[in-house]
């Protein structure tokens, strides 16, 4: 652990993690831990838990953030970049291939039928995600007011979502000052 790891090794480890990252956050966390803490012994359990916490405290996808944080611990900024590119690689390549295929076949009736079913499923998925977020996050009058306010600002007043989020953040400095 004292010797600095090569960027290639870091990239390859995260390539593996990024390629097999199916099945939601919890199985991902276990996979990370197995690959980096137990098998390769690159970081300690404590360092891993700290990176996990950092991943959730910073904006962006928590699991990618955890990888960036571990990469930084292993090899500073270059390690962070190697971890990012490694984790993003497979998904990005697949998305590009699917995009090329999708745009080429967009007028195909079979693909249109498939995507009608898919779009309906995505709406259900989004609804389920929102439902879980409401249960977890909307717990008092402050959070309920913020959620309702943001909803009305976008649905009725058509305000810009970036502005709404920045305003909510600023409001938080007042509302959550004493927490």
């Amino acid at each position, binding site marked *: 652990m004292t010797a600095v790891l090569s960027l290639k090794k870091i990239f390859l480890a995260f390539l593996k993690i990024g390629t*097999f*990252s199916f099945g939601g956050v919890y199985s991902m966390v276990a996979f990370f831990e197995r690959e980096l803490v137990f098998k390769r012994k690159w970081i300690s359990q404590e360092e891993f838990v700290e*990176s996990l916490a*950092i*991943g959730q*405290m910073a*904006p*962006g*996808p*928590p699991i*990618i*953030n955890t990888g*960036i944080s571990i990469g930084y611990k292993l090899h500073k900024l270059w390690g962070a970049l190697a971890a*990012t590119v490694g*984790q*993003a690689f497979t*998904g*990005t390549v*697949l*998305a*590009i291939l*699917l*995009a*090329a295929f*999708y*745009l080429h076949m967009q007028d195909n009736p*079979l693909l249109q*039928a*498939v995507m*009608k*079913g*898919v*779009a*309906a*499923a*995505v*709406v*259900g*998925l989004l609804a*389920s*995600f*929102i*439902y879980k977020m409401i249960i977890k*996050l*909307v717990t008092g009058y*402050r*959070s309920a007011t*913020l959620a309702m306010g*943001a909803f009305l600002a*976008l649905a009725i007043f058509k305000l810009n*979502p*970036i502005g709404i989020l*920045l305003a*909510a*953040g600023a*409001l*938080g400095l007042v*509302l959550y*000052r004493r*927490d």
Partner: protein
Amino acid sequence: MALLQMAAILFIANALTIGGGYAMVPILQQEFVNHYHWLSNKEFLDAIAIGQVTPGPLTVMNAFMGFKVGGLAGALVAMAASYLPCVIIVTLVTKYYLRYKEIWAVKAGFAAIKPAVVGLLLAVLIFLGHGSIINPLTAGIAAASFALLTFTKIDPSIIIITAGFLGAFLF
């Protein structure tokens, strides 16, 4: 020029992705669909589906949208712009972790942004639902997908792929 605008939007959207990958969806829907018309609402939903079935976080959908905007270069610019804020912020937080933990303003800001994201997503859901829930069949698929994801531990990718097969046979 479009690529530069897109990069700026993705950078901001990802810097504001607080409380899970879906937090960027309202911003992206507003900018990519409503404002710049780079994608239709239907294509936007398809992009979310692609982001779900590919390995890695939902962010991968940005490569799909970037490809639509500017081909291969568009996809690569999109991914770079999406992950740049993460790399910058996470390396800084990792470096100064012990001090960052104590900053109350970050906690207070995040605490307020998370419920606001819920409200925004609800508005986007209603908007996107209008175009894609068009008959009892699509309503049924959406309801089944909601129930399976809420009450079981089935992987979202499996639900999306199954819905695609259903679509092929039923529509």
